[in-house]
Protein backbone atom coordinates (compact mmCIF):
# COMPACT_ATOMS: atom_id res chain seq x y z
CA UNK A 1 0.00 0.00 0.00
CA UNK A 2 1.49 3.30 -1.08
CA UNK A 3 1.26 6.37 1.07
CA UNK A 4 -0.53 8.98 -0.98
CA UNK A 5 0.83 12.48 -1.00
CA UNK A 6 -2.60 13.77 -0.05
CA UNK A 7 -5.38 12.65 2.25
CA UNK A 8 -8.92 11.67 1.31
CA UNK A 9 -10.14 14.74 3.12
CA UNK A 10 -7.88 16.91 1.04
CA UNK A 11 -9.10 15.25 -2.16
CA UNK A 12 -12.72 15.81 -1.14
CA UNK A 13 -12.13 19.48 -0.42
CA UNK A 14 -10.21 20.05 -3.65
CA UNK A 15 -12.78 18.20 -5.76
CA UNK A 16 -15.46 20.45 -4.27
CA UNK A 17 -13.37 23.54 -4.93
CA UNK A 18 -13.04 22.59 -8.59
CA UNK A 19 -16.81 22.55 -8.99
CA UNK A 20 -16.97 26.27 -8.24
CA UNK A 21 -16.49 29.01 -10.81
CA UNK A 22 -15.55 32.66 -10.91
CA UNK A 23 -19.12 33.82 -11.49
CA UNK A 24 -20.62 31.75 -8.72
CA UNK A 25 -22.30 33.27 -5.73
CA UNK A 26 -21.87 30.68 -3.07
CA UNK A 27 -23.85 30.40 0.16
CA UNK A 28 -21.62 28.86 2.78
CA UNK A 29 -23.97 27.58 5.47
CA UNK A 30 -23.17 26.03 8.81
CA UNK A 31 -21.32 22.76 8.36
CA UNK A 32 -20.48 23.49 4.75
CA UNK A 33 -16.96 23.29 3.44
CA UNK A 34 -15.74 26.82 3.61
CA UNK A 35 -12.33 25.27 2.97
CA UNK A 36 -13.48 24.26 -0.50
CA UNK A 37 -14.96 27.66 -1.23
CA UNK A 38 -11.83 29.45 -0.12
CA UNK A 39 -9.49 27.12 -2.00
CA UNK A 40 -11.52 27.89 -5.14
CA UNK A 41 -11.21 31.61 -4.41
CA UNK A 42 -7.45 31.30 -3.89
CA UNK A 43 -6.86 29.26 -7.04
CA UNK A 44 -8.99 29.24 -10.19
CA UNK A 45 -11.92 31.40 -9.06
CA UNK A 46 -10.52 34.61 -7.54
CA UNK A 47 -13.75 36.52 -8.21
CA UNK A 48 -16.14 34.01 -6.66
CA UNK A 49 -18.55 35.61 -4.22
CA UNK A 50 -18.76 33.90 -0.86
CA UNK A 51 -21.75 34.62 1.36
CA UNK A 52 -22.00 33.43 4.95
CA UNK A 53 -25.44 33.46 6.50
CA UNK A 54 -24.26 35.75 9.29
CA UNK A 55 -24.68 38.56 6.76
CA UNK A 56 -21.22 38.84 5.23
CA UNK A 57 -21.30 39.20 1.44
CA UNK A 58 -18.25 38.87 -0.79
CA UNK A 59 -15.99 37.87 2.03
CA UNK A 60 -12.35 36.83 1.56
CA UNK A 61 -10.94 35.46 4.82
CA UNK A 62 -7.23 34.77 4.99
CA UNK A 63 -7.89 32.02 7.53
CA UNK A 64 -10.87 29.70 7.76
CA UNK A 65 -13.54 30.90 10.16
CA UNK A 66 -14.36 28.75 13.18
CA UNK A 67 -17.98 29.82 12.97
CA UNK A 68 -20.14 31.35 10.28
CA UNK A 69 -19.95 34.67 12.11
CA UNK A 70 -16.24 35.19 12.72
CA UNK A 71 -15.00 38.78 12.71
CA UNK A 72 -12.63 38.06 9.85
CA UNK A 73 -15.60 37.40 7.57
CA UNK A 74 -16.98 40.86 8.25
CA UNK A 75 -13.62 42.59 8.06
CA UNK A 76 -12.93 41.25 4.56
CA UNK A 77 -16.48 41.47 3.17
CA UNK A 78 -17.76 43.81 0.48
CA UNK A 79 -20.68 44.51 2.81
CA UNK A 80 -22.28 43.04 5.92
CA UNK A 81 -26.06 43.06 6.13
CA UNK A 82 -28.53 42.05 8.82
CA UNK A 83 -29.66 38.44 9.02
CA UNK A 84 -33.27 39.20 7.99
CA UNK A 85 -31.96 41.01 4.93
CA UNK A 86 -29.63 38.09 4.20
CA UNK A 87 -32.49 35.63 4.09
CA UNK A 88 -34.94 37.95 2.31
CA UNK A 89 -32.97 39.93 -0.27
CA UNK A 90 -30.05 37.61 -0.89
CA UNK A 91 -31.11 34.00 -0.40
CA UNK A 92 -34.85 34.19 -1.12
CA UNK A 93 -34.13 36.87 -3.73
CA UNK A 94 -32.64 34.10 -5.87
CA UNK A 95 -29.18 35.64 -6.11
CA UNK A 96 -27.21 32.61 -4.91
CA UNK A 97 -26.04 30.21 -7.60
CA UNK A 98 -24.68 27.46 -5.34
CA UNK A 99 -25.61 26.40 -1.86
CA UNK A 100 -23.27 24.06 -0.02
CA UNK A 101 -24.79 21.67 2.48
CA UNK A 102 -23.47 18.97 4.73
CA UNK A 103 -25.54 16.12 6.11
CA UNK A 104 -25.79 13.82 9.09
CA UNK A 105 -27.98 11.55 6.97
CA UNK A 106 -28.37 11.69 3.21
CA UNK A 107 -30.45 9.61 0.84
CA UNK A 108 -29.84 8.90 -2.83
CA UNK A 109 -32.18 11.71 -3.88
CA UNK A 110 -30.25 14.37 -2.02
CA UNK A 111 -32.73 14.71 0.82
CA UNK A 112 -30.84 15.66 3.97
CA UNK A 113 -31.32 15.11 7.68
CA UNK A 114 -29.50 17.21 10.28
CA UNK A 115 -32.39 17.31 12.76
CA UNK A 116 -32.83 14.07 14.70
CA UNK A 117 -31.81 10.44 14.68
CA UNK A 118 -34.90 8.46 15.53
CA UNK A 119 -38.37 9.84 16.05
CA UNK A 120 -38.77 13.63 16.08
CA UNK A 121 -40.62 13.74 19.40
CA UNK A 122 -38.52 11.11 21.15
CA UNK A 123 -35.17 11.26 19.38
CA UNK A 124 -32.26 8.94 19.96
CA UNK A 125 -29.91 11.76 19.08
CA UNK A 126 -30.99 15.37 18.95
CA UNK A 127 -28.88 16.99 16.22
CA UNK A 128 -28.45 20.78 15.84
CA UNK A 129 -31.27 21.18 13.31
CA UNK A 130 -31.56 22.74 9.92
CA UNK A 131 -30.47 26.33 10.41
CA UNK A 132 -30.57 27.85 6.96
CA UNK A 133 -30.73 24.52 5.13
CA UNK A 134 -34.47 24.23 4.33
CA UNK A 135 -34.44 27.48 2.32
CA UNK A 136 -30.87 27.09 1.05
CA UNK A 137 -32.05 23.84 -0.51
CA UNK A 138 -34.97 25.51 -2.24
CA UNK A 139 -33.63 28.98 -3.11
CA UNK A 140 -30.12 28.39 -4.46
CA UNK A 141 -29.66 27.66 -8.15
CA UNK A 142 -27.94 24.36 -7.40
CA UNK A 143 -26.99 22.45 -4.26
CA UNK A 144 -23.64 20.78 -3.71
CA UNK A 145 -23.37 18.29 -0.86
CA UNK A 146 -20.13 17.19 0.73
CA UNK A 147 -19.69 14.41 3.27
CA UNK A 148 -17.44 11.52 4.08
CA UNK A 149 -18.92 8.24 2.97
CA UNK A 150 -20.34 5.93 5.63
CA UNK A 151 -23.25 3.55 5.88
CA UNK A 152 -24.48 5.50 8.86
CA UNK A 153 -24.56 8.75 6.87
CA UNK A 154 -25.56 7.63 3.39
CA UNK A 155 -28.77 5.75 4.11
CA UNK A 156 -31.69 4.18 2.31
CA UNK A 157 -34.20 6.30 4.22
CA UNK A 158 -33.41 9.35 6.31
CA UNK A 159 -35.14 9.76 9.68
CA UNK A 160 -36.24 13.33 9.05
CA UNK A 161 -36.33 15.53 5.94
CA UNK A 162 -34.52 18.62 7.16
CA UNK A 163 -34.03 19.89 3.63
CA UNK A 164 -35.68 18.68 0.49
CA UNK A 165 -33.60 17.34 -2.38
CA UNK A 166 -35.42 15.50 -5.16
CA UNK A 167 -37.98 13.86 -2.85
CA UNK A 168 -38.61 10.42 -4.28
CA UNK A 169 -37.32 11.33 -7.71
CA UNK A 170 -37.27 13.84 -10.50
CA UNK A 171 -40.48 15.85 -10.79
CA UNK A 172 -41.08 16.10 -7.07
CA UNK A 173 -39.39 19.49 -6.92
CA UNK A 174 -41.55 20.91 -9.66
CA UNK A 175 -44.64 19.51 -8.00
CA UNK A 176 -43.76 21.62 -4.95
CA UNK A 177 -43.39 24.71 -7.12
CA UNK A 178 -39.59 24.71 -6.92
CA UNK A 179 -37.87 25.93 -10.07
CA UNK A 180 -34.32 25.66 -8.76
CA UNK A 181 -32.30 22.56 -9.66
CA UNK A 182 -31.71 21.18 -6.18
CA UNK A 183 -28.83 18.82 -5.40
CA UNK A 184 -26.77 18.26 -8.52
CA UNK A 185 -23.47 17.20 -7.03
CA UNK A 186 -22.33 15.04 -4.13
CA UNK A 187 -18.66 15.12 -3.34
CA UNK A 188 -17.39 12.51 -0.92
CA UNK A 189 -13.97 11.42 0.21
CA UNK A 190 -14.13 8.64 -2.41
CA UNK A 191 -16.03 9.93 -5.40
CA UNK A 192 -17.97 12.57 -7.25
CA UNK A 193 -21.65 11.77 -7.65
CA UNK A 194 -23.94 13.59 -10.05
CA UNK A 195 -27.68 13.76 -10.01
CA UNK A 196 -29.26 11.68 -12.79
CA UNK A 197 -31.42 14.11 -14.80
CA UNK A 198 -34.01 11.37 -15.34
CA UNK A 199 -34.41 9.89 -11.87
CA UNK A 200 -32.90 12.52 -9.55
CA UNK A 201 -30.67 9.84 -8.02
CA UNK A 202 -27.00 10.36 -7.31
CA UNK A 203 -24.80 8.36 -9.66
CA UNK A 204 -21.05 7.94 -9.26
CA UNK A 205 -19.39 9.81 -12.10
CA UNK A 206 -15.79 9.93 -10.97
CA UNK A 207 -13.60 8.00 -8.55
CA UNK A 208 -10.89 9.74 -6.58
CA UNK A 209 -7.32 8.41 -6.91
CA UNK A 210 -7.02 5.20 -4.92
CA UNK A 211 -10.77 4.80 -4.40
CA UNK A 212 -12.40 1.64 -5.73
CA UNK A 213 -15.96 0.81 -6.72
CA UNK A 214 -15.99 -1.68 -3.92
CA UNK A 215 -14.97 0.93 -1.35
CA UNK A 216 -17.77 3.18 -2.58
CA UNK A 217 -20.34 0.38 -2.39
CA UNK A 218 -19.24 -0.73 1.06
CA UNK A 219 -19.48 2.75 2.56
CA UNK A 220 -22.86 3.61 1.07
CA UNK A 221 -26.13 2.58 2.69
CA UNK A 222 -28.07 2.57 -0.56
CA UNK A 223 -27.30 0.52 -3.65
CA UNK A 224 -24.71 2.66 -5.35
CA UNK A 225 -25.20 3.31 -9.06
CA UNK A 226 -22.30 4.04 -11.35
CA UNK A 227 -22.30 6.01 -14.58
CA UNK A 228 -21.65 4.14 -17.83
CA UNK A 229 -18.27 5.78 -18.05
CA UNK A 230 -16.85 6.48 -14.61
CA UNK A 231 -13.99 8.92 -14.78
CA UNK A 232 -10.91 9.26 -12.65
CA UNK A 233 -10.81 12.39 -10.49
CA UNK A 234 -7.50 14.09 -11.24
CA UNK A 235 -5.23 14.11 -8.24
CA UNK A 236 -4.77 17.46 -6.50
CA UNK A 237 -2.32 19.69 -8.28
CA UNK A 238 0.66 21.13 -6.52
CA UNK A 239 -1.06 24.53 -6.43
CA UNK A 240 -4.31 23.13 -5.04
CA UNK A 241 -2.61 21.16 -2.36
CA UNK A 242 -0.28 23.97 -1.35
CA UNK A 243 -3.15 26.43 -1.25
CA UNK A 244 -5.25 24.16 0.94
CA UNK A 245 -2.40 23.31 3.29
CA UNK A 246 -1.28 26.92 3.60
CA UNK A 247 -4.86 27.90 4.40
CA UNK A 248 -5.09 25.20 7.06
CA UNK A 249 -1.71 26.18 8.48
CA UNK A 250 -2.67 29.87 8.69
CA UNK A 251 -5.94 28.83 10.28
CA UNK A 252 -4.27 26.62 12.87
CA UNK A 253 -1.84 29.37 13.71
CA UNK A 254 -4.60 31.95 14.06
CA UNK A 255 -7.02 29.83 16.06
CA UNK A 256 -4.64 27.53 17.88
CA UNK A 257 -4.11 23.82 17.27
CA UNK A 258 -7.83 23.19 17.36
CA UNK A 259 -8.52 25.43 14.40
CA UNK A 260 -9.78 24.60 10.98
CA UNK A 261 -13.23 23.19 11.60
CA UNK A 262 -15.55 23.99 8.74
CA UNK A 263 -18.71 24.53 10.68
Amino acid sequence: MTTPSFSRDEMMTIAAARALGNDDVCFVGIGAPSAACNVARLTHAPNITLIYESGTIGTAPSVLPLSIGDGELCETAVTTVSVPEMFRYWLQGGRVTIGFLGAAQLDRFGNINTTVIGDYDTPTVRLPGGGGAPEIASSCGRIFITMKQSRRGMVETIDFVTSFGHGTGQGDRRALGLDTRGPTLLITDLAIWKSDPETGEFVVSSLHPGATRQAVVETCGWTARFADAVEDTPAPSELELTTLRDLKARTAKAHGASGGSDS
Partner: protein
Amino acid sequence: MARFMTLAEAMKETLSDGDSVAFEGFTHLIPHAAAHEAIRQGKTDLTLIRMTPDVIYDQMIGMGMARRLVFSYAGNPGVGLLRRLRDAVENGWPRKLEIEEHSHAAMANAYEAGASGLPMAVFRGYKGAGLAKVNPNIKSVTCPFTGEVLAAVPALRPDLGVIHAQKANRQGDVLIEGIVGVQKEVVLAAKRSVVTVEEVVEDFADVHPNACVLPRWTISAIAVVPGGAHPSYAQGYYGRDNPSYLEWDGIAADRDRFRAWMETNVLQAKPEDFADRVAMLEKRP
Protein backbone atom coordinates in the same frame (compact mmCIF):
# COMPACT_ATOMS: atom_id res chain seq x y z
CA MET B 1 -36.62 55.57 27.35
CA ALA B 2 -33.27 53.96 28.06
CA ARG B 3 -32.13 54.13 31.68
CA PHE B 4 -28.59 53.27 32.71
CA MET B 5 -28.48 50.80 35.58
CA THR B 6 -26.51 47.84 36.87
CA LEU B 7 -26.97 44.55 35.08
CA ALA B 8 -28.50 43.07 38.23
CA GLU B 9 -31.08 45.87 38.38
CA ALA B 10 -31.75 45.63 34.64
CA MET B 11 -32.50 41.89 34.68
CA LYS B 12 -34.53 42.18 37.89
CA GLU B 13 -36.71 44.92 36.45
CA THR B 14 -37.31 43.43 33.04
CA LEU B 15 -37.42 39.63 33.38
CA SER B 16 -40.00 37.64 35.32
CA ASP B 17 -40.58 33.94 35.76
CA GLY B 18 -42.67 32.60 32.91
CA ASP B 19 -41.59 35.28 30.43
CA SER B 20 -40.57 34.71 26.86
CA VAL B 21 -37.09 36.08 26.36
CA ALA B 22 -34.62 36.27 23.48
CA PHE B 23 -30.93 36.67 24.24
CA GLU B 24 -29.82 37.29 20.67
CA GLY B 25 -26.48 37.48 18.93
CA PHE B 26 -25.24 35.77 15.80
CA THR B 27 -21.82 34.39 16.83
CA HIS B 28 -20.83 38.03 17.35
CA LEU B 29 -21.96 40.03 20.43
CA ILE B 30 -23.67 37.22 22.31
CA PRO B 31 -24.91 38.58 25.66
CA HIS B 32 -23.17 36.11 27.98
CA ALA B 33 -22.99 38.44 30.98
CA ALA B 34 -26.71 39.17 30.85
CA ALA B 35 -27.56 35.48 30.56
CA HIS B 36 -25.37 34.72 33.58
CA GLU B 37 -27.11 37.41 35.57
CA ALA B 38 -30.48 35.83 34.71
CA ILE B 39 -29.08 32.49 35.88
CA ARG B 40 -27.88 34.02 39.16
CA GLN B 41 -31.31 35.52 39.71
CA GLY B 42 -32.82 32.05 39.31
CA LYS B 43 -35.46 32.98 36.77
CA THR B 44 -37.59 30.01 35.82
CA ASP B 45 -40.29 28.72 33.48
CA LEU B 46 -38.84 30.82 30.70
CA THR B 47 -39.58 30.47 27.01
CA LEU B 48 -36.17 30.91 25.46
CA ILE B 49 -36.14 32.24 21.89
CA ARG B 50 -33.08 32.36 19.68
CA MET B 51 -32.03 31.48 16.15
CA THR B 52 -28.78 29.93 17.33
CA PRO B 53 -29.03 28.79 20.94
CA ASP B 54 -25.47 28.02 21.90
CA VAL B 55 -23.51 27.98 25.13
CA ILE B 56 -25.69 30.42 27.10
CA TYR B 57 -28.88 28.53 26.33
CA ASP B 58 -27.12 25.23 27.03
CA GLN B 59 -26.32 26.73 30.43
CA MET B 60 -29.81 28.03 31.11
CA ILE B 61 -31.43 24.78 29.97
CA GLY B 62 -28.96 22.79 32.07
CA MET B 63 -29.91 24.89 35.08
CA GLY B 64 -33.57 24.04 34.52
CA MET B 65 -34.71 27.57 33.79
CA ALA B 66 -36.40 26.88 30.47
CA ARG B 67 -39.86 25.48 29.90
CA ARG B 68 -39.75 25.94 26.15
CA LEU B 69 -37.23 26.67 23.40
CA VAL B 70 -37.97 28.35 20.08
CA PHE B 71 -34.97 28.01 17.77
CA SER B 72 -33.57 27.20 14.36
CA TYR B 73 -30.06 25.84 14.94
CA ALA B 74 -28.85 24.47 18.26
CA GLY B 75 -25.12 23.93 18.14
CA ASN B 76 -21.88 24.99 19.77
CA PRO B 77 -20.47 27.05 16.89
CA GLY B 78 -17.34 25.49 15.44
CA VAL B 79 -17.51 22.62 17.93
CA GLY B 80 -20.62 20.48 17.65
CA LEU B 81 -23.70 19.57 19.64
CA LEU B 82 -25.10 21.18 22.77
CA ARG B 83 -24.93 18.50 25.43
CA ARG B 84 -27.20 20.06 28.07
CA LEU B 85 -29.82 20.72 25.43
CA ARG B 86 -29.55 17.13 24.22
CA ASP B 87 -29.88 15.85 27.78
CA ALA B 88 -33.05 17.89 28.22
CA VAL B 89 -34.61 16.82 24.91
CA GLU B 90 -33.48 13.19 24.98
CA ASN B 91 -33.74 12.48 28.73
CA GLY B 92 -35.81 15.30 30.21
CA TRP B 93 -32.95 16.34 32.51
CA PRO B 94 -33.17 18.43 34.62
CA ARG B 95 -36.68 18.98 33.29
CA LYS B 96 -38.65 18.36 30.18
CA LEU B 97 -38.12 20.95 27.45
CA GLU B 98 -40.79 21.77 24.89
CA ILE B 99 -39.36 22.78 21.56
CA GLU B 100 -40.70 24.85 18.70
CA GLU B 101 -38.28 24.44 15.83
CA HIS B 102 -37.97 26.61 12.74
CA SER B 103 -35.55 27.34 9.95
CA HIS B 104 -33.24 30.38 10.08
CA ALA B 105 -35.28 32.04 7.34
CA ALA B 106 -38.46 31.61 9.38
CA MET B 107 -36.93 32.97 12.59
CA ALA B 108 -35.27 35.92 10.84
CA ASN B 109 -38.53 36.76 9.10
CA ALA B 110 -40.48 36.31 12.34
CA TYR B 111 -38.27 38.81 14.18
CA GLU B 112 -38.57 41.16 11.22
CA ALA B 113 -42.35 40.83 11.39
CA GLY B 114 -42.26 41.44 15.14
CA ALA B 115 -40.23 44.61 14.64
CA SER B 116 -42.70 45.62 11.94
CA GLY B 117 -45.73 45.24 14.19
CA LEU B 118 -47.20 42.49 12.02
CA PRO B 119 -48.88 39.36 13.38
CA MET B 120 -47.05 37.04 10.98
CA ALA B 121 -44.16 36.72 8.60
CA VAL B 122 -44.69 35.62 5.00
CA PHE B 123 -41.84 34.07 3.03
CA ARG B 124 -41.03 31.38 0.50
CA GLY B 125 -39.88 28.51 2.62
CA TYR B 126 -40.29 25.08 4.15
CA LYS B 127 -40.94 23.54 0.72
CA GLY B 128 -40.84 19.82 1.28
CA ALA B 129 -39.27 20.31 4.70
CA GLY B 130 -40.11 17.99 7.58
CA LEU B 131 -40.50 20.80 10.09
CA ALA B 132 -43.68 21.90 8.37
CA LYS B 133 -45.18 18.55 9.43
CA VAL B 134 -44.16 18.64 13.09
CA ASN B 135 -44.51 22.35 13.93
CA PRO B 136 -48.14 23.52 14.00
CA ASN B 137 -46.95 27.13 13.92
CA ILE B 138 -45.93 26.71 10.30
CA LYS B 139 -48.90 27.61 8.13
CA SER B 140 -49.40 29.21 4.74
CA VAL B 141 -51.04 32.08 2.91
CA THR B 142 -51.91 32.25 -0.76
CA CYS B 143 -50.83 35.18 -2.88
CA PRO B 144 -54.03 36.80 -4.22
CA PHE B 145 -52.18 37.93 -7.36
CA THR B 146 -50.30 34.80 -8.44
CA GLY B 147 -51.88 31.98 -6.45
CA GLU B 148 -48.49 31.00 -5.05
CA VAL B 149 -48.67 29.35 -1.64
CA LEU B 150 -46.16 30.95 0.73
CA ALA B 151 -45.10 29.96 4.22
CA ALA B 152 -46.40 31.91 7.22
CA VAL B 153 -45.14 31.82 10.80
CA PRO B 154 -46.24 33.92 13.78
CA ALA B 155 -44.26 37.08 14.42
CA LEU B 156 -41.85 36.86 17.34
CA ARG B 157 -42.72 39.34 20.08
CA PRO B 158 -40.70 38.34 23.16
CA ASP B 159 -41.53 39.84 26.53
CA LEU B 160 -37.87 40.71 26.77
CA GLY B 161 -35.07 41.10 24.23
CA VAL B 162 -31.47 41.11 25.43
CA ILE B 163 -28.46 42.03 23.32
CA HIS B 164 -24.85 43.10 23.74
CA ALA B 165 -23.55 46.07 21.72
CA GLN B 166 -20.33 47.98 21.31
CA LYS B 167 -21.33 51.29 22.82
CA ALA B 168 -23.97 53.66 24.05
CA ASN B 169 -23.77 57.42 24.06
CA ARG B 170 -24.68 59.45 27.15
CA GLN B 171 -28.21 59.94 25.86
CA GLY B 172 -28.70 56.18 25.69
CA ASP B 173 -28.59 55.60 21.94
CA VAL B 174 -26.86 52.30 21.14
CA LEU B 175 -24.44 51.54 18.30
CA ILE B 176 -23.98 48.03 16.86
CA GLU B 177 -21.34 47.42 14.20
CA GLY B 178 -20.05 44.47 12.17
CA ILE B 179 -22.15 41.32 12.08
CA VAL B 180 -25.39 42.85 13.32
CA GLY B 181 -27.48 39.68 13.12
CA VAL B 182 -31.07 40.16 14.26
CA GLN B 183 -30.16 42.42 17.17
CA LYS B 184 -31.99 45.51 15.98
CA GLU B 185 -35.05 43.44 15.18
CA VAL B 186 -35.18 41.67 18.54
CA VAL B 187 -35.05 44.96 20.44
CA LEU B 188 -37.77 46.48 18.26
CA ALA B 189 -39.88 43.31 18.41
CA ALA B 190 -39.66 42.86 22.19
CA LYS B 191 -41.96 44.47 24.73
CA ARG B 192 -38.93 45.34 26.90
CA SER B 193 -35.24 45.33 26.14
CA VAL B 194 -31.89 45.21 27.92
CA VAL B 195 -28.65 46.17 26.20
CA THR B 196 -25.24 45.53 27.71
CA VAL B 197 -22.46 47.63 26.19
CA GLU B 198 -18.69 47.68 26.23
CA GLU B 199 -18.54 51.38 27.02
CA VAL B 200 -20.37 54.70 27.10
CA VAL B 201 -19.11 57.53 24.92
CA GLU B 202 -20.01 61.19 24.88
CA ASP B 203 -21.67 61.09 21.47
CA PHE B 204 -21.62 59.28 18.11
CA ALA B 205 -20.61 62.41 16.21
CA ASP B 206 -18.36 60.60 13.74
CA VAL B 207 -20.49 57.54 13.12
CA HIS B 208 -21.62 56.61 9.62
CA PRO B 209 -25.13 57.98 8.92
CA ASN B 210 -26.47 54.53 8.03
CA ALA B 211 -24.81 52.62 10.87
CA CYS B 212 -27.05 50.39 12.97
CA VAL B 213 -28.16 52.64 15.83
CA LEU B 214 -31.02 51.98 18.23
CA PRO B 215 -32.45 55.30 19.47
CA ARG B 216 -32.71 55.60 23.25
CA TRP B 217 -36.49 55.52 23.27
CA THR B 218 -36.53 51.98 21.84
CA ILE B 219 -34.57 50.55 24.80
CA SER B 220 -35.63 49.88 28.39
CA ALA B 221 -32.31 49.48 30.18
CA ILE B 222 -28.61 49.79 29.43
CA ALA B 223 -25.90 48.21 31.59
CA VAL B 224 -22.22 48.83 31.01
CA VAL B 225 -20.46 45.45 31.11
CA PRO B 226 -17.02 45.46 29.50
CA GLY B 227 -16.27 42.03 28.09
CA GLY B 228 -19.95 41.12 28.44
CA ALA B 229 -19.96 39.03 25.26
CA HIS B 230 -17.11 36.72 26.31
CA PRO B 231 -16.34 34.06 25.04
CA SER B 232 -18.14 35.51 22.01
CA TYR B 233 -16.49 38.61 20.58
CA ALA B 234 -17.08 42.33 20.18
CA GLN B 235 -15.70 43.73 16.95
CA GLY B 236 -13.29 46.54 17.70
CA TYR B 237 -12.85 45.37 21.32
CA TYR B 238 -11.78 41.75 21.59
CA GLY B 239 -11.67 38.56 19.54
CA ARG B 240 -13.51 35.31 20.05
CA ASP B 241 -12.17 33.06 22.81
CA ASN B 242 -12.20 29.84 20.84
CA PRO B 243 -10.67 27.62 23.54
CA SER B 244 -13.60 28.45 25.84
CA TYR B 245 -16.05 27.13 23.24
CA LEU B 246 -14.03 23.93 22.91
CA GLU B 247 -13.77 23.61 26.66
CA TRP B 248 -17.54 23.90 26.97
CA ASP B 249 -17.96 20.65 25.07
CA GLY B 250 -16.20 18.79 27.88
CA ILE B 251 -17.87 20.68 30.69
CA ALA B 252 -21.36 20.13 29.31
CA ALA B 253 -20.76 16.44 28.67
CA ASP B 254 -21.13 15.60 32.36
CA ARG B 255 -23.97 16.70 34.65
CA ASP B 256 -21.79 17.01 37.76
CA ARG B 257 -18.95 18.76 36.03
CA PHE B 258 -21.51 21.14 34.51
CA ARG B 259 -23.03 21.95 37.91
CA ALA B 260 -19.63 22.54 39.45
CA TRP B 261 -18.54 24.79 36.61
CA MET B 262 -21.73 26.82 36.83
CA GLU B 263 -21.33 27.22 40.57
CA THR B 264 -17.80 28.60 40.25
CA ASN B 265 -18.05 30.56 37.04
CA VAL B 266 -21.60 31.84 37.09
CA LEU B 267 -23.35 31.59 40.44
CA GLN B 268 -20.33 32.80 42.41
CA ALA B 269 -19.25 35.29 39.75
CA LYS B 270 -20.16 38.90 38.99
CA PRO B 271 -20.69 40.93 35.82
CA GLU B 272 -17.43 42.73 36.58
CA ASP B 273 -15.53 39.47 36.06
CA PHE B 274 -16.09 39.65 32.32
CA ALA B 275 -13.61 42.49 31.90
CA ASP B 276 -10.85 40.24 33.24
CA ARG B 277 -11.85 37.39 30.94
CA VAL B 278 -11.24 39.44 27.81
CA ALA B 279 -8.18 41.29 29.04
CA MET B 280 -5.79 38.88 27.41
CA LEU B 281 -7.69 38.45 24.14
CA GLU B 282 -6.44 39.91 20.91
CA LYS B 283 -8.07 43.19 20.04
CA ARG B 284 -9.86 42.89 16.71
CA PRO B 285 -9.80 45.82 14.32
